[in-house]
């Protein structure tokens, strides 16, 4: 009954078959890229993040216990990689004082996809990494509190508290700009 292609490729990858891991990457990279788009601003950054997710997955492969589907396990790694990226990025932005006016960005003016993406990142960049992660997982990817807790390693109570704070901070941010 074991028709899970991931499981066979994981076993082969652990035995040193590089092509098996390539098949895993090819199977999951589109979904991971969709997820990482919410962390990285441009295509190059998204590609870099997707690559980091799979490299980390490769070196953690022995730790995959197959209790949960492989994509769930991969999503936990993706969340960790994305969160790490946000924290590093926030430090860089602090050191370069990357500040521009929010007034230039409003939802009504964003018919163009790249402008909309730019506007979205511009708003989210002003949140703390924790706030941004909570907003992203709960409201952009529509995960439940339990799923968000599993992805982040936070408790369910912590997710609820973080989501409440994040939403309040986002509201303040948007009120200030309007």
């Amino acid at each position: 009954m074991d028709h899970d292609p991931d499981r066979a490729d994981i076993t082969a990858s652990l035995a040193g078959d590089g092509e098996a891991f390539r098949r895993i990457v090819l199977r999951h990279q589109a979904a991971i890229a969709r997820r990482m788009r919410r962390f990285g601003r441009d295509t190059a950054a998204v590609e870099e993040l997707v690559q980091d997710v799979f490299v980390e997955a490769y070196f953690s492969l022995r730790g995959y216990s197959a209790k949960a589907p492989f994509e769930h396990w991969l999503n936990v790694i993706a969340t960790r990689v994305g969160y790490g990226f946000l924290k590093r990025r926030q430090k860089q932005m602090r050191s370069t004082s990357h500040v521009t006016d929010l007034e230039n960005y409003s939802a009504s003016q964003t018919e163009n996809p790249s402008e909309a993406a730019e506007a979205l990142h511009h708003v989210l960049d002003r949140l703390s990494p924790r706030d941004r992660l909570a907003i992203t997982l709960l409201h952009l990817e529509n995960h439940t509190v339990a799923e968000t807790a599993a992805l982040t390693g936070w408790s369910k109570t912590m997710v609820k508290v973080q989501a409440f704070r994040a939403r309040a901070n986002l509201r303040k941010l948007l009120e200030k700009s309007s």
Partner: protein
Amino acid sequence: MNEIEHIQKLDAAAGKVPPVDVSTRVLREIRVARSRITDAKPLWFAALVSGLAAAAVVLVAAQTFSGLQDPLGDLLTPVLTAFQ
């Protein structure tokens, strides 16, 4: 429109991510990382060997030092027993 609807609208307008293929880059990165680990192995081995060698030197020195004390102890023993 509340704050969540605002960002959801932006997110929807941002469209889909263009297709990516990082498979070749991932495999190359893995190869590089693995070779880095393999290259680092001799350094660990060298550190281990030099650590063991240093420990052996300390042991030999301690033994030698204690051996030097023995003749003195043996010389003094008859003198001390003669006085008793």
